[in-house]
């Protein structure tokens, strides 16, 4: 059976179970797009910018657990993918990006729209390929999917020259296992490491589990719950780990890190044992490393050996798939009780919680926290929330209680503004039956607002909440706190978001007071088209608590208390 290289791309994607791709056509990828017309089984979503395509593929992957696919042409098409690729790389999201490349005979000659995309993406992909012969396409794309989803997942880019797409070759589908001699993702832990970990846990009086995205990626939510309950250990979650253990679980104490709650960070600092599961001790999680959990022994479980001892030196490092590791661990674990410690951590919430803006007396102003809190009340546990980057992202993490995995999609590692809308398009394509909310700031939303038209063309029914405070809020907050309130280029104007939505053929609404929030949310839900609701919130609110960059984790800045006046925590 003869096939062109272009057809082979779709043949392999079909066999990899791909039914949706995100992309943007162009010169060097023309043959592939021509062939696509005959592959009705694959739905192509035309984004308005290639960055949108890579974010959408990422959102698709995070919502579904499957590999997301983005397609672009050579040169600028390929470079526009890079931000999305780097975002996926930092958050270990499995995507495959296919780019067209100029003909192999003109590579290196600075041909029109030529660009060394494999060179450019080398540091931000798990692996990448340049394909110059049609006969390599099937093998390479199969390998790309395998590498992207196995081990620690990540983005893989396949750059295919135009002549390779045009060549005709015999199509042979080979289902034999992929052989990559230098790649073996199925690492497993050594038994003696379990012995040491179990011993440390049984000796510990004040242990704490730090759970990250690895829980969700390996599907270890149930194993985590069993561990937590059998060992009776409080659990703190990373931003990307939210949903790994239900927010309502008695042992879930909340998010850790720079904007984690005070009692969570204090508990980490006071612990005598940290059990880090599928997280990587990011600086936003640890604060100053020299003062981080100094009195604690540390156990670190991760699928990537290069994460063990990277930022925090640990006493026991266990390499392996988290679900497999926790299953083994749970089998050997004897039930334990730590009433004193667990109730101590629980009680330390006490006063800290009174700092919450939701508990403050109504001053007639609308705060972002109010919006998130209403969304929490009015959406069910299955709703997918896709956030952008900045203050609203942290408020979402603090106030929206995620009870299920894969219900929060956000750019954690790279912190990519403009991520939310295109990623939500991907999430909605992956889970069309689920309610999907975009929560974005006025700044980040404007970075990729062109994707509103993608929602229109696809007939998607997204719910978009733009939290508008007229500032690049998180940067403004840093300028307020650490740069003498010199607001350098942080005030930002916005278009009329209602008219913007309408110009795209969508619906828009504006909310300026607390009473309007709930009705606006409910009227957005369940509508057949995308509805953008702008929430005009207090301009100069800040995210509290906050650990200043480079400071010890428990030296956080607390929300200034207004009323009723109580003693300030130090």
């Amino acid at each position: 059976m003869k096939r062109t290289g272009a057809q082979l791309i779709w043949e392999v994607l079909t066999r990899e179970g791909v039914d949706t791709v995100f992309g943007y056509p162009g010169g060097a990828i023309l043959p592939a797009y021509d062939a696509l017309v005959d592959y009705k089984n694959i739905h192509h979503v035309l984004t308005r910018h290639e960055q949108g395509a890579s974010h959408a593929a990422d959102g698709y992957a995070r919502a579904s657990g499957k590999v997301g696919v983005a397609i672009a042409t050579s040169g600028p098409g390929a470079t526009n993918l890079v931000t999305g690729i780097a975002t996926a790389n930092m958050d270990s999201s499995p995507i495959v990006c296919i780019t067209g490349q100029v003909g192999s005979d003109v590579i290196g000659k600075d041909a029109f729209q030529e660009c060394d995309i494999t060179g450019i993406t080398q540091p931000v992909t798990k692996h990448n390929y340049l394909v110059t012969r049609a006969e390599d396409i099937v093998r390479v794309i199969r390998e790309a999917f395998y590498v992207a989803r196995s081990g620690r997942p990540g983005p893989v880019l396949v750059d295919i020259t135009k002549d390779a797409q045009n060549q005709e070759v015999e199509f042979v589908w080979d289902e034999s296992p992929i052989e990559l001699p230098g790649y073996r993702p199925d690492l497993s832990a050594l038994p003696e490491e379990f012995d040491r970990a179990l011993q440390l846990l049984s000796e510990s009086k004040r242990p704490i589990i730090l759970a990250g995205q690895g829980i969700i990626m390996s599907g270890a939510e149930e194993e985590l719950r069993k561990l937590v309950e059998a060992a009776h250990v409080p659990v703190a979650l990373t931003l990307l780990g939210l949903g790994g253990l239900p927010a309502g679980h008695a042992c879930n104490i909340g998010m850790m890190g720079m904007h984690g709650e005070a009692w969570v960070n204090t508990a980490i600092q006071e612990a005598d044992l940290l059990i880090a599961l599928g997280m990587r001790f990011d600086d936003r999680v640890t604060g100053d490393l020299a003062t981080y959990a100094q009195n604690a022994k540390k156990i670190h479980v991760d699928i990537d050996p290069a994460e063990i001892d990277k930022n925090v030196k640990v006493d026991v490092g266990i390499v392996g798939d988290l679900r497999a590791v926790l299953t083994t661990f749970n089998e050997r674990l004897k039930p334990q009780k730590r009433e004193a410690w667990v109730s101590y951590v629980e009680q330390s919430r006490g006063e800290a919680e009174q700092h919450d803006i939701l508990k403050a007396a109504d001053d007639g102003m609308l705060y972002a926290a109010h919006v998130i809190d209403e969304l929490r009340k009015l959406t069910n546990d299955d709703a997918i929330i896709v956030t952008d980057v900045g203050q609203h992202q942290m408020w979402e993490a603090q106030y929206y209680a995620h009870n299920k995995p894969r219900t929060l999609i956000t750019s954690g590692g790279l912190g990519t503004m403009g991520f939310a809308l295109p990623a939500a398009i991907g999430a909605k394509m992956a889970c069309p039956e689920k309610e999907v909310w975009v929560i974005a700031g006025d700044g980040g939303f404007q970075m990729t607002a062109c994707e509103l038209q993608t929602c229109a063309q696809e007939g998607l029914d997204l719910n978009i909440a733009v939290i508008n405070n007229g500032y690049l809020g998180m940067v403004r907050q840093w300028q307020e706190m650490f740069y003498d309130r010199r607001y350098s280029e942080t005030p930002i104007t916005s278009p009329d978001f209602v008219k913007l939505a309408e110009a795209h053929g969508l619906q828009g609404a504006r909310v300026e007071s607390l009473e309007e929030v709930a009705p606006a949310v409910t009227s957005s839900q369940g509508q057949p088209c995308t509805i953008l609701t702008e929430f005009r919130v207090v301009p100069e609110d800040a995210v509290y608590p906050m650990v200043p960059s480079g400071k010890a984790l428990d030296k956080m800045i607390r929300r200034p208390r207004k009323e009723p006046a109580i003693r300030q925590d130090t």
Partner: protein
Amino acid sequence: MLNPNEPIQRKAPQRQLHTFAVYAEDKPGVLSRITSLFRRRAYNIDSLTAGHTDVPGVSRLTVVLESDDAEARLIEANLYKLVNVLRVEDLTHVATMKRDLALIKVKANAEARPQVMQMIEVFRARIIDVAPESLVLEITGTEDKIDGLLEILSPFGIIEMVRTGGVAMTRGSEATTIHPHFVHARVPQDKNS
């Protein structure tokens, strides 16, 4: 049991030159992937040499860089993350032979020549080119030995010099230090068995 008031004491890391033997698939861009990794993770390479092995399609690189043992372990783990890297050996703490090769063009007119040749004799270097005003010599040996010769020759005037950077191999049939956690690939000699 831990004393909660006493921070856990950890030894100050000792930095030294670490030598890695890296086996990689001989494919386009592999060297770039490896150097890109070192650049990205801010590891400073002291020297790097690459060449073919006895197995077609497999290259062997010798990488020398300064690090402590913990960082060396991370470098090893990161190298294994490259899909094209087959095997990494940290040769630092095992008995190895290390050799560097240098070609040195030194000023040596009729008057200076006997003195220069005497030095060459002592260092067991070889003369590979003779011209009226200069000599080119070849020396293999440890880095120290080559540094020593250079020091001796510099008063005569070194016109040009090129060094390969170190290559290394373990002594005897001793197995090298392979981290059991990372090893996952066939190594060249395995292919025959």
